[in-house]
């Protein structure tokens, strides 16, 4: 089996200015903090973040917001992190707000080779602006198109050397979707286990999606 394990230093080399970065987690729950460290240490700038939210102050993605090197975030809400709202108001950060279910489907499309999905969510609201409306069986839907990233940062409760991931509780959220929708996928976990310790039925993210497993010291 190919050795996928790399150090935090090696992980840093995969970031570059202007890239689009998907980051798993929901208000910091299931977010790869170690890989947030890697972004910060890499000094990369002008990047776009695709994530559910910008977390709460001090944790997860809010540490990137505080660093002020991101150019744009594509998220479903920013209400839990006042600094994101401040930067948006001051014109320092571009914020694109997407309904959470639409965001999930767009990322799923990006990872699944689909050209888009039709959804009723957002019809007749500002979310519909500039989007195609398509009628199916007398019902109008918005056409929502795929989202992909240059790199996705994923966190699981357990990971094995093949890259198979298992998620405890609510830490799953966007992680399995993002693991499929980026050109390069880096993953960390609470616990690094041996092959066979995650039962085949219980794998939520098959290891083929993970390019590198990042381990701290």
């Amino acid at each position: 089996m190919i050795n996928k394990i790399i150090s935090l230093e090696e992980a840093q080399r995969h970031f570059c200015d202007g890239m689009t970065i998907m980051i798993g987690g929901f208000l910091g729950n299931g977010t790869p903090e170690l890989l947030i460290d890697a972004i910060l240490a890499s000094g990369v700038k002008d990047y776009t973040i695709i994530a559910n939210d910008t977390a709460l102050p001090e944790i997860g993605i809010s540490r990137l917001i505080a660093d002020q090197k991101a150019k744009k975030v594509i998220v479903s809400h920013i209400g839990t992190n006042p600094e994101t709202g401040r930067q948006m108001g001051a014109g320092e950060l571009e914020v694109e707000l997407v309904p959470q279910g639409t965001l999930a489907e767009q990322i799923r499309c990006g990872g699944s080779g689909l050209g888009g999905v039709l959804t009723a969510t957002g019809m007749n609201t500002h979310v519909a602006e500039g989007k195609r409306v398509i009628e199916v069986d007398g019902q109008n839907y918005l056409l929502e198109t795929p989202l992909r990233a240059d790199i996705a940062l994923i966190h699981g409760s357990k990971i094995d050397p093949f890259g198979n991931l298992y998620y405890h509780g609510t830490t799953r959220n966007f992680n399995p979707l993002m693991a499929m929708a980026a050109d390069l996928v880096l993953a960390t976990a609470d616990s690094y286990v041996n092959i066979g310790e995650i039962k085949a039925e219980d794998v939520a993210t098959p290891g083929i999606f993970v390019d590198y497993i990042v381990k701290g010291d």
Partner: protein
Amino acid sequence: MDAREVIARRAALEIKDGDVVNLGIGIPTMVANFIPEDVHAVFQSENGIMGMDKMASPEEQNPDIVNAGAAMVTVKDYASFFDSALSFAIIRGGHLDLTILGALEIDQEGSLASHIIPGKMVPGMGGAMDLVAGAKKVIVVTTHTARGDAKKILKTCKLPLTAYKKVHKIVTELAVFDITKGGLLLIEKRKGVTVDEIREKTEAEFQVSHDLKDFGPPLQS
């Protein structure tokens, strides 16, 4: 009893045995505290739980199990966890019997504005747009007016919409409205409040049910 508790207690009566329910943050979350003991609802949390129970006590806290507001919660013994795609397939696919959400504005056509005040407050819609588009029944709970007696129940929402014509019922501390094809219908009023007093605090036009009932503890002025 404060207005929020009056609203939460009244809204709790809308939940039927076996209902699958998603509660928004704020007053909607309080609703769970007032469900009659013989009513067993199943609570979904859009971050990936079916069968959410209650706030975790200090001994129960597990940082891997949180609700959509990032608070640590417990789950029922029949619970399941899933990713965001399945969570919103549940929400959009009509698998929720009911969602209860807050509002900035709500209008007589059932349109809702709840997620943005341009230039002022831009928290984002989170899962709210999906919930109102997908749930079989949508109930809005809100104080009848905003600070400074600003009206919230309007003829037409002025803020950017979260949903267009999707709300079925409005519960405030003063009134319960059904939203029908013909417009708003006042079906219950707070004990001790007159219909005229409600009209004064409501921009929207509404009809009054022939079977108008009282609810809640009498309003103390």
